[in-house]
């Protein structure tokens, strides 16, 4: 099950991947929070169309960038879904788990 590495093993061949996973996990969490907030504002209906388009484009590019980075580090979507024990998974069940 995915866990944050207890410590980052400073072996040159794995340190990049471990650090990458840690950073990508945090970025992915922020991206999802931003997306949820954006959807709430769309729901509320107080955003002008061009603002919605802007927000959507930004989030879409961010997601594409995340996929590329994840593939660069050889990670599956579930690898970023940290198991928080009784709290469930960081990114929820939809994000998959390892």
């Amino acid at each position, binding site marked *: 099950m995915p866990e944050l590495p207890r410590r980052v093993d400073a072996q040159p061949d794995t340190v990049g991947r471990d650090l990458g996973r840690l950073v990508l996990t945090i970025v992915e969490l922020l991206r999802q929070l931003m997306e949820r907030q954006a959807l709430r504002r769309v729901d509320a209906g107080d955003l002008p169309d061009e603002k919605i388009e802007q927000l*959507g*484009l930004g*989030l879409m590019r961010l997601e594409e960038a995340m996929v590329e980075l994840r593939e660069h580090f050889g990670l599956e979507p579930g690898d970023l879904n940290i198991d928080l024990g009784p709290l469930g998974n960081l990114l929820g069940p939809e994000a998959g788990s390892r």
Partner: protein
Amino acid sequence: MSLVWLYAVRHGGADRPPAGPGVDGERPRLVVEGPLVAVVGTVREEEFDEAALARAMEDLDRIERLARAHHAVIVEAAAEEPTAPLRLATVYRDDEAVARMLRERAAEFAQVLERVRDRQEWGVKVYVDAKPEAPAEEPASSGKPGTAYLLRRRADRDRGAQARERARAVADRIDETLAGVAAAAHRMRPQDARLSGRAQEMVLNATYLVDAEAEEGFRAALAAVEADGATVELTGPWPPFSFATLGES
């Protein structure tokens, strides 16, 4: 030195102890006290005193071996008489301590054994697809990819919320129906997908205590519930352990 490991309590009779082997490879024995019989095993103190058990509880392989042996003895003991299993790692100093406990808690044991007499336990697990199906056709993009993206994500989110809502309704409906037919019901926390080994998400994990003669009615009730596409898994009949397990008082 040795200790006494307690497996189960049942009504006395022309009793043979289960053949075992028990948790320490020993052959189980009986401690008789009035109308009650305790199924026990003599185990080595150095392996089963408090400190050793605390260590054992951190060793998953050892817990598994202990639990399997404990369970096997209980199942054997429960074959004929209503039997109340004890939790794993219930250990007494000697037979006299076991007999004293049986005397002190005789009324409680009698009540529990009466509750499970001629009844069986059934397990029901309900699974739904964790990922709601994708929409049939994307609306044609109108030169606004960002807006289309956001709307798609919104549809995903709403579909997920609806799926969870439906799953909860199915779980409640099945549980209510079965609890109405059963003598007692016990709803547990759904297991994580990694434990259940399924791609689907578990939304109901419950056990029901059912009169042996009501089995047909129970099965019919389950078959009649509208499951709304959910996968329903029925297991049993089991000895009614969930409704008879005794803890330390």
